């Protein structure tokens, strides 16, 4: 592979302005993963802060590497309708020439898409927080990023069957939101509930982390949706602006729902509403008018709010409500496009309300196929990993907290009673953990 070949690889032209924006957008989306780590870490108990955050950091590690090795090729190589080929494995022929259909370098396109894969893997970790063994999670994250994320990305973005049929998914309602949400449900079912779930009040330990994490996620989401037009053209600008409007409407409705239900507007509810609003506009960003985006934010708050109220009353410990916040909101957004897509604004196609009923059919197809695929494959994958290694920590370890057990660190170490030992001694004494029996 020589440089001149890479530069001259593809026909078309690279646009400087588009490339500049996409470089920034890629960095913005990458920041969403540590932001999610902060959001998740605030939602768990203090003794699991680092482990929860580290699950997001781990996505930055393994999902990125897997993406470069095979994930990108599975998602964006031509292949067939169901799965991409391996022609871009190990980033073969991914160079400085423009990616087909865009005016940005193929290499940058790959990096931008990588950040989506990373944050989606991190999202799933919310379902198994506070109990899954870190080693088993690393294996799961690596395999899931290829078997579930890359395949779904191929369906919706990479020329797969949903995209060919005409499903409109602007920035990841299929692969990112429904993909993570319904996988999270499967993961929670296979790994099982935390030992204290339903017996003790398991409260968020730092609401400020949650709010700050949500705020940074919203900030990053401008790159996520605004970059999904791959240019500074109208669809990217529309998606960018809708990313401002939709979550604001969700927040207002969420406040109202909180007031009706509990007589007080909650901070953690507000943080959740920001996420739900950003998810809602993800599939619709560049396809609906700003007015429709406000409506989507308002209406879409309802099913996710209901899901978050209902889920803790079940025995399913889908710990951080990835299903309600991402799966349900992503599904709502995908269906909304089927009604409210407007060619006047997007130049691509109309939805049911503007005279094209067929669009709703393609949207509904994605809203059925994606959850089924994500749930089934994730369920099977975790079952297989579970045969090879224990998926979760023992009850005693869970009681002690995953930070100390899995990482040998504490988020809030005081240093009192800590005695310096020489590095030669190494980590010889194991963490004192008793058998559950």
């Amino acid at each position: 592979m020589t440089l001149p070949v890479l530069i001259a690889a593809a026909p078309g032209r690279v646009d400087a302005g588009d490339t500049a924006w996409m470089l920034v957008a890629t960095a913005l989306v990458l920041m969403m993963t540590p932001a999610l780590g902060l959001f998740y870490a605030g939602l768990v108990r203090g003794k699991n802060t680092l482990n929860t955050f580290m699950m997001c950091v781990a996505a930055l590690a393994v999902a990125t590497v897997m993406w470069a090795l095979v994930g990108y090729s599975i998602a964006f190589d031509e292949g067939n309708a169901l799965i991409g080929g391996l022609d871009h494995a190990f980033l073969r022929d991914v160079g400085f020439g423009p990616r087909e259909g865009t005016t940005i370098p193929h290499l940058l396109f790959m990096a931008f898409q990588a950040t989506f894969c990373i944050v989606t893997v991190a999202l799933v970790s919310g379902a198994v927080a506070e109990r899954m063994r870190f080693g088993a999670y690393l294996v799961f994250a690596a395999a899931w990023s290829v078997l579930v994320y890359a395949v779904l990305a191929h369906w919706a973005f990479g020329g797969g069957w949903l995209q060919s049929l005409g499903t409109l998914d602007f920035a990841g309602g299929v692969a990112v939101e429904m993909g993570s949400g319904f996988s999270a449900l499967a993961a929670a079912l296979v790994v099982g509930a935390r030992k204290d779930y339903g017996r003790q009040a398991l409260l968020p330990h730092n609401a400020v982390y949650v709010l700050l994490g949500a705020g940074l996620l919203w900030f990053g989401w401008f790159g996520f949706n605004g970059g999904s037009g791959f240019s500074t053209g109208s669809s990217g600008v529309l998606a960018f602006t809708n990313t401002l409007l939709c979550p604001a409407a969700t927040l207002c409705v969420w406040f109202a729902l909180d007031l009706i239900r509990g007589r007080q507007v909650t901070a953690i509810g507000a943080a959740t509403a920001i996420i739900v609003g950003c998810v809602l506009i993800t599939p619709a960003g560049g396809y609906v008018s700003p007015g429709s985006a406000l409506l989507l934010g308002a209406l879409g708050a309802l099913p996710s709010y209901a899901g978050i109220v209902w889920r803790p009353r079940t025995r399913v410990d889908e710990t951080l409500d990835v299903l309600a916040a991402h799966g349900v909101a992503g599904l709502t957004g995908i269906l909304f496009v089927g009604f409210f897509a407007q060619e006047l604004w997007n130049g691509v196609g109309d939805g049911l309300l503007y005279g094209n009923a067929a669009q709703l059919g393609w949207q509904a197809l994605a809203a059925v196929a994606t959850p089924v695929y994500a749930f089934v494959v994730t369920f099977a994958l975790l079952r297989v990993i579970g045969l090879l290694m224990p998926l979760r920590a023992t009850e005693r370890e869970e009681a002690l907290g995953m930070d100390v057990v899995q990482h040998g660190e504490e988020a809030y170490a005081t240093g009192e009673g800590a005695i310096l030992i020489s590095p030669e001694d190494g980590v010889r004494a194991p963490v004192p953990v008793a058998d559950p029996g």
Partner: protein
Amino acid sequence: MKLVIGVVRPEKANDVMEALYRAEVRGLSVSRVQGHGGELDRVETYRGTTVQMRLSEKVRFEVAVSDPYVEPTINALCEGGSTGEVGDGKIFVVPLERVVRIRTGETGDSAVTPVEK
């Protein structure tokens, strides 16, 4: 009257509360403390610094009870706080010279007996 002091694992504090409630012991104070018994030390590493954590987080219950409640209180602390491993904690029982209920000025046993509502 005795003051029963129980130092237990933080993760067992809820179980102890439940056991005390079942034993009809209602009044108690709880504080977070750090302590060291016979348990193994945890080793933690922060960058190049490896340390042995000699102090473990514990929760300290203080329960002032009239004599008939001493045994039930001790039993509840043992039952709720036990995992069978080193580090489960200790119970100290000390005599109480005087108890005063601030609201009413009651003293003695009636001051440590919960008000019937």
